[in-house]
């Protein structure tokens, strides 16, 4: 049960949140300009490394705010 730092509410239990996957993967400005490989890359491919990982969460059962955090995937510690 992670303790997740919501920028609006402060630390709250993980059960109040939904995971939003890797952060900083924007929806392409013009999807039609992408070839199939690049589009598939956006849809299906994300980083999956051990260590610091920028990811998104949404405080679904709280303020409903989406936000980014950096979490160490090995220790689950959040970067300040």
């Amino acid at each position, binding site marked *: *049960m*992670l*303790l997740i730092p919501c920028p609006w509410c402060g630390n709250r*239990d993980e059960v109040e949140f*939904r995971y*939003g996957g890797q952060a900083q993967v*924007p*929806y*392409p400005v013009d*999807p*039609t300009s*992408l070839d*199939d490989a690049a*589009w*598939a890359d*956006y*849809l*299906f491919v994300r980083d999956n490394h051990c260590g610091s990982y920028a990811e*998104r969460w*949404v405080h*679904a059962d709280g303020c*409903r*705010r*989406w936000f980014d955090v950096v979490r160490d995937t090995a220790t*689950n510690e959040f970067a300040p």
Partner: protein
Amino acid sequence: MTRLPSGGRIDRGRTVECEVDGVPLRGHPGDTLASALLAAGRLEVAPSVYLGRPRGVLTADPGEPNALVQVLDDPEPMVPATEVELRDGLAALSLSGVGRADPGGAARCEKRYRHADVVVIGAGPAGIAAALAAGRSGARVYLVERHRELGGALLDGDERIDGVPGAKWVARAACELAARPETRVLTRATVTGHYDHGYLLVAEHSAPEQRPPWQRLWHLRARRVVLATGARERPVAFPGNDRPGVLLAGAVRRYLRRFAVLPGERAVVGTTGDSAYATALDLVAAGASVPLLVDARPEPPAALLARARDAGVPVRTGAAVIGTSGERWVSAARVSALDDRGRPVGPVDVPECDLVAVGGGWNPAVELSRDPLVWDAEIAAFAPDGDAAVGAARGSFGLRDCLAQGFAAGAAAAAATGFPVVAPPIPPVDADPAPARVRPLWMIQGDEESSFVDLQRDVTVADVRRAVDAGLRSPEHVKRYTTLGTGSDQGATSNVLGLGVLATLLGIEPGDLGTTASRPPVRPMRFELLAGRDRGALHDPVRTTPMHDWHVRAGAVFEDVGQWKRARHYLRPGEDMAAAVLRECTAARTGVAMMDATTLGKIDVIGPDAGEFLNRVYTNGFAKLTVGKARYGMMCTADGMVFDDGVTMRLAPEHYLMSTTTGNAAAVLDRLEEWLQTEWPQLSVHCTSVTEQWATIAVAGPDSRTVLARVAPELDVSAAGFGFMEFRDAVLRNGIPARISRISFSGELAFEINVASWYGQAAWDAVFADGADLGITPYGTEAMHVLRAEKGFVIVGQDTDGTVTPLDLGMDWVVSKRKSFIGDRSFARPDTARSDRKQLVGLLPVDRDALLPEGAQLVEPDATRTPPVPMLGHVTSSYRSAALGRTFALALVRDGRRRVGEVLHAPIGGADLAAEVTDPVFYDPEGARRDGHQPR
């Protein structure tokens, strides 16, 4: 009887009567089932799980691998007898390693959620010291102890602290802790898991006399955790080490001291370190004889040898117990010298005895540690590499060290949470010095098939050798290959021993192997405790509509849709479900029927950019929708798959009211928020859930216009005055303001009446009364499903599953080519653009009365029936149709649209059901019935 005449922490003033395996057993309050059995001379417990070997009590703590019982009026399956506190009327059965699951009784389990600054796990000397130091700072402190009383090993010895006996020091500390308003002590409470960010689960249970018993699950969020979990003694793997009468040396001492029970009259003590000397001396003091103490170390500390000599205990050094003999129980030990590699050499002594007390060393109890574990050669065990663990849990066994570390860690933990405090001075301590280095001794050469490593799982040295011979090296692999450490005791007595045996067989040091990972829960937990009171009707919140009680009175049978209770159909006397659904469908197609549609998700979408936003979210256009009109819309995920659908109205230029499927309302709102916040923050739009603010009544059928004209007398409901997909604000005849729309999910003329939820029942009553002479029929979700399927309308989540595009459903008309929307790029992906994808089709069983099971696989008639069978698709919806007078179904079939006219088979239980592939619209394909007949 081997109860000592005095001593122990039992209440001799009262006798407790219970029974084990039908045989009466007496004891005292304070006894455990194990101590009472030993006091009664009942050494033997149930035979071992796989090999059926006789077994006896081995330990005095929760890690007991042999003495497992089922308490008859307690649903907890298979508990160690060492953990069961005696009470009058207790009845238990011995178990051979397999418990009996019991569904449990009334909810006697509850949960508590607490935040704490400092949680100290374990209340031996180190834990008490930590709690005292932290508590004095004013921090909120929890001290969690699994036994009924505090003190740990201090209750088993003669140590003195601050000039008083250890037990008295403990009692004083308990008084101080109890008096601190921010400190809470939990006894009979086991920490079952130490999770991320200081999250602890604590299982607390009631005192034995509590009837009915209760259990409480604490969810503690700790800012700092101090581990004072102590250490566990380990056995040595020698032939016959599982014979009843072989006990761990520390357990023997605990039975003597805490329970005043003498487990044997004539004891051979075998040890690899200092601690078992105290056991030997206590045995002598209790009147037993100790014919031999065997120390594996060639040169034990001189002071210990002197004390043994003064007590008349012969000591043999550089030797070990290498076996036992006896009919069932121990009647003699086998003792021999060891060479420098730990192998027996020279002649074998066979001292007679009825008790073998073995100490193979002490393992810090590290299963709750989140720090890395490192091999400590001094104690021949793994210890946490960090400052969270104190005392024996860190591998420090001297009392003075335990107190010093506890005080320091408690003060540091409090300071770290904002409560600075100076660690208390260490009081004078009168105790044995910290023990000398142990000699690692894991296994004795001999019969490996009877040298047990894990007694609960019947795993022997021979089993570990077989794993090594099979090429396994990793402790994790050996664990799975042999099941070593997988019992309900979680390898309490066997994990480190297993590592030592494995290392010995591989010819390396245990420290080079690393350990197996301990995963919570570290003690078995019943789901009942995790659930607490959230079971039965309280398992999940139940959502009901304002008209729910009416449905109940009308004979509704409900189904769960998300958390909503929806009327599935209404049973009349003598009807079954099939008859009720046919009746309800007939009413909707030939007369008039009404349904409670309140549960559909409703989201207000408001703002200057609302139209643009919906244009991007829906596959079809909404920006140009006229105010006063409604439109069916479909949403896709970025990969182009159908996500949700529903009808959205434009109430005002900057205000839309979106409807979603019942089960998906929250997910849709989440998705809207995600795109608004993370991708398009420049759009000025706000979304608000208004599902529970509106009650919705669908009125369907050719006579629905007549009913609406009566219910809303001032409203022009003619076909010319009230077009399809339009809505009007109106006032019902009973004064209720309503928003009425003309939308249809059945293909019939139909209206939907939306009123504020608190008017829902009154509006329903008005409609029901005004349609009474027309035979208005309430219909449920099952009839709704049949009616929509006859029209080929899909239910998202039933006819779609996240791999289906709007084009697969034949709904090209809903996919705009003139604007971009989420997922549009995906329709050009090669896989999505394939022409032979699974597509929505209709199925008409060749036997008009045969009902295809939903989910049934579809194959070519001549396809092989030997796996792998080429699958073409599956049935998604299947019903009996009143309008068609036969059964029909919808299905997703590979290249389905090209297969119309073909016959496919659904293999069901050895037989085939044949069905013809058809267009998915079965009823009124021209849509002529949508406008109904003109008012009479």
